[in-house]
C-alpha cells in the first residue's frame, strides 16, 4: 500500500517521507496510536517505500544519493531519541538484488514483486511479528492443516492474553543479524509491543542499541505506558491520531458512496476515528445490528427492574458472541469460540463496553454537544432525565471498572449481572 492509500495521518506520513527522502530512517520507530488506527498499515507502507523496485524508475536517483552506512561507534546511543548521526560514507559495493542502491524516495508503487511480497508478509527482509496465544491455547483451535493454524494465530493477535513470545523475537533478531537477502533497507515490524514480557523487551532493546546496518525496527503500540521506558527512548516516536469526525465522515463518503448517510454517520461515531475499525463496521453490517441491540438495552435501563439484570446479563453475553461471529464468520472463529468461549467473550466484551460507554457519554452531553450515536437522539434525550450528567459519569466509571474486572478474571456471569444492577442503581427519579 503506497502512502497515498493511507487514510489520514498526513502529518505522520510527511515525517516518514522526509526521513526517506533524506535517507535518514532511524533504527527504531515507535508508532503510537489507538487500536485499528492504521499503525501496521503505515509500517508496511514505509517498508514498501524504502524497498520498492520501481523507485529508481519513478524517481531517478540524484547525485546526492548515497548508501546509508552507519559505522560502529558513530551511532547515537544517548538517552534522548533523535535521528542517528549521519556518517557520510561512500556507497557500499553492490551485492545481490538491487545493485547500487538508488536513493529511497517517498513513495512505493504497490505493484512490483517487492511491494506485493511485503504486503503479503512474504518478503524475507521485511517481517511482521504479532502477538499470539501461547501454544497450548492455539493447539485447541488447531485444525488438521497448517493453514488453519496460521489463521487461528492471526485471530489470536486480537485476544487480550495474546503475547509476543520470546521465540518469535529471537527468530526475528537472528534474522536481523544476517546479511539482507535483497532489501535496500530491512524493516522489522513488531505489533502491540507492550504485550512483550520485560525479558523479551530487553532482548529487543539490546539490538536497538547496537543495530545491524540498514535496518529499521518499527514497534507499534496503543499503550506506550506499558512499555519499558528504555525501549521507548531508543525509538523515534510517531503519533497516529484518530481522524476527526468531519474527516472520518468525508473519507467514509468517498470510500463507500453507496452506503446510506445514516450508516456512515453511525460508523463515523462508533469507529472513534480509527479507520481500520470504520472499515470493519462498513463491511460487516451485522456488527451494526449488535450495536443497535446494545443501545436498545441501554435505553431500556430507564424502565427495568433490578431482577431483570439476570436476563440483561445473558443478553449482553449473547450480543458479544454475535459480534464475535460477525467479525470472524469463518470456521476458525467458530472453533475458537468453542474452545475458549469465556476467553473469547472477555475479549469481545471490551468492544461492547465501548458502545455502552458511548451511550452514557452521550447522556452527559445530551442536548449540548455532538452525539456519538446521533440516530438515538430521542432516546438519549429521554434517558438523560433519569441519568443526569453526574450519574452518567458514574456509569462510565462503573463500565471502566468492569473492564478491569474482566481482565482480572471476574466470574463472567456474575459480573455481567452486577454490572446491570449497578447501572440501574445510578438512576434518579
Amino acid at each position, binding site marked *: 500500500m503506497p502512502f497515498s492509500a493511507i487514510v489520514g495521518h498526513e502529518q505522520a506520513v510527511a515525517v516518514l517521507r522526509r526521513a526517506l527522502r533524506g535517507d535518514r530512517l532511524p533504527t527504531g520507530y515507535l508508532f503510537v496510536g489507538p487500536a485499528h488506527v492504521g499503525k501496521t498499515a503505515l509500517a508496511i507502507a514505509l517498508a514498501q517505500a524504502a524497498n520498492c523496485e520501481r523507485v529508481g524508475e519513478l524517481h531517478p536517483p540524484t547525485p546526492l544519493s548515497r548508501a546509508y552506512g552507519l559505522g560502529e561507534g558513530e551511532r547515537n546511543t544517548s538517552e534522548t531519541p533523535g535521528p542517528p548521526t549521519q556518517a557520510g560514507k561512500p556507497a557500499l*559495493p553492490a551485492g*545481490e538484488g538491487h545493485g547500487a542502491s538508488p536513493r529511497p524516495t517517498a513513495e512505493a508503487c504497490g505493484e512490483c514483486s517487492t511491494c506485493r511480497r511485503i504486503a503479503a508478509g*512474504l518478503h524475507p527482509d521485511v517481517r511482521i511479528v504479532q502477538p499470539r496465544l501461547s501454544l497450548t491455547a492455539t493447539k485447541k483451535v488447531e485444525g488438521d492443516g*497448517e493453514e488453519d493454524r496460521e489463521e487461528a494465530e492471526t485471530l489470536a493477535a486480537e485476544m487480550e492474553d495474546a503475547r509476543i513470545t520470546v521465540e518469535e523475537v529471537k527468530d526475528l533478531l*537472528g534474522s536481523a*543479524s544476517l*546479511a539482507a537477502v*535483497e532489501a535496500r533497507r530491512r524493516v522489522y515490524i513488531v505489533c502491540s509491543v507492550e504485550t512483550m514480557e520485560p525479558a523479551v523487551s530487553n532482548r529487543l532493546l539490546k539490538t536497538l542499541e547496537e543495530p545491524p546496518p540498514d535496518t529499521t525496527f518499527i514497534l507499534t503500540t496503543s499503550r506506550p505506558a506499558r512499555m519499558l521506558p528504555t525501549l521507548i527512548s531508543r525509538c523515534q516516536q510517531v503519533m497516529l491520531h484518530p481522524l476527526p469526525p468531519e474527516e472520518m465522515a468525508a473519507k467514509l463518503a468517498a470510500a463507500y458512496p453507496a452506503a446510506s448517510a445514516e450508516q456512515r454517520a453511525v460508523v463515523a461515531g462508533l469507529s472513534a476515528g480509527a479507520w481500520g475499525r470504520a472499515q470493519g463496521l462498513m463491511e460487516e453490517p451485522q456488527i451494526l445490528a449488535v450495536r443497535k441491540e446494545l443501545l436498545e438495552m441501554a435505553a431500556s435501563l430507564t424502565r427495568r427492574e433490578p431482577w431483570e439484570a439476570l436476563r440483561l446479563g445473558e443478553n449482553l453475553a449473547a450480543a458479544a458472541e454475535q459480534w464475535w461471529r460477525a467479525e470472524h464468520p469463518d470456521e476458525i472463529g467458530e472453533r475458537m469460540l468453542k474452545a475458549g468461549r469465556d476467553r473469547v467473550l472477555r475479549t469481545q466484551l471490551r468492544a461492547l463496553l465501548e458502545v455502552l460507554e458511548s451511550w452514557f457519554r452521550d447522556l452527559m452531553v445530551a442536548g449540548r454537544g455532538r452525539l456519538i450515536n446521533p440516530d438515538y437522539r430521542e432516546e438519549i434525550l429521554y434517558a438523560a432525565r433519569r441519568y443526569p450528567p453526574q450519574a452518567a459519569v458514574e456509569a462510565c466509571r462503573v463500565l471502566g471498572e468492569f473492564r478491569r474486572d474482566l481482565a482480572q478474571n471476574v466470574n463472567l456471569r456474575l459480573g455481567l449481572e452486577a454490572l446491570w444492577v449497578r447501572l440501574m442503581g445510578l438512576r434518579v427519579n
Partner: protein
Amino acid sequence: MLKASCPQGVLHEILQTISRGVSGRSTQPVQNNIFLSSADGNLRLVATDLEYLSLDTQVPAMVTEEGAVTIPGRVFNEIVASLAEEEVSLESESPGELTIRCAKSNYHVRGLPSDDFQFLPAIEPEVEFTLPEGDLRKILSQTIFACSQDETRPILTGALFCAKPDNLIVVATDTYRLALRTLSLPLDVAEEKKVIVSARVLGELMRILEEDSSDPVSVRLSRRLVEFEVRNLKIASRLIEGEFPNYEKVIPQDPDKKLVLQIAPLERVLRRAFIVARLDSNRVVLRGEESLLRLSAQAPDLGSVEEEIEMELTGDPIEIAFNARYLLDMLEVAGGEQVALHLAGSLNPGTLRPLGRDDYTYVVMPMQIIA
C-alpha cells in the same frame, strides 16, 4: 506438469540431506516444503529457510514432462524412506499436488504451488576458490565447536573465514576459547576477504563432507551470501553481519612455560577427572613440575579425584585451572600424537597446539583455582 521417475535408493539418499534444509517453523508455509522440479533432464530439489540454510541439488532421473511442485519436506522424506527399493514415479497432475508411486504404493500428497516458493538470490561471488573436501572437513571439525551458542551475540555464533592469496584462515570463538586454523594453499583471490559464516550452515556442511575425499569444494563469497558446492550439491547461507573480534590480539604472544603431553593419555585422564569436575563447572586444576603433571578436580557434594600424567615441562612449575570440556573438545580433533600447551601466569590464557605444527592454535581461558 512434472512427471519424472528415479530409483528409491537415490531419492532416499538425497532427501536425507535435503530435508535438513527444511526448517519446519518458517512463518511462510511454503518454505517448509521441498521444491521439486525438472532441470536439464535431472530432478532438482531445493529446501531453504531463507536464512541460515539453502540446499540445492540435482539427481539424475527420467524426466518425461517438465514442471515443478513443492511438497511438505518431512512427509516427503518419510514417504520415500518407507517405499520399496524400486523405481519411484513422481507425477504432479495439478499445481501443488504430487502423486508418488512405487511398486504397489500410491501416495497422493497435497503441497503448495511452486510459484510461491522463494529461493535465496543467486550468488554473485566476489571471491571464489576451491579446496579439497577432506581438508575443508578437517578445518571445520577443528574450529566450529568453539562457536558460541549465545544468540545475544550473533557475531560469535559464526566462524570467521578469512581468504588471503596464499592461505585460508578459519576462526571461531565464544570468548572462553578460540580455535584458529590456517590452511596454506594458493587461493585465487586478489585481496583479503573476510566473512562470518553461521555455525549452523557449517555444521550441516560438515555432515555432508567426507573425510577421505579430495573432491574439490567450491567456496563462493559475496557481500551477503556464502555458497559451498560439492558433488552437485549447493549449500548456501546468508552471512552474519558485523565485525568479528580481533582474534590476533587474543593469542598470547610470550608464554614462558611449555608442556608437551601425549594426547591419548591426556584425553583419558581428563575424561576420568571430568566425572567429578562436571559437578563443579568442569573445573580441573593442573599442577606440575619437572616431568609430572597432576590433575585434580573436586565437587563439594561428591568428593575429589587426582590423576598423574607424564609430561615434558620447559620453564617454572605450573598451577592453573581449565574447563576440562574445553580441553577435551580440542584434543578430540587435534590429530597427531603430542600436543604442546603454552602457559604464562595462572590467570593468563593457555595455548594448545599439536606439537610441531603452527597451523592450528587453540586458546583457552583459565578458571579460578579454588582450593
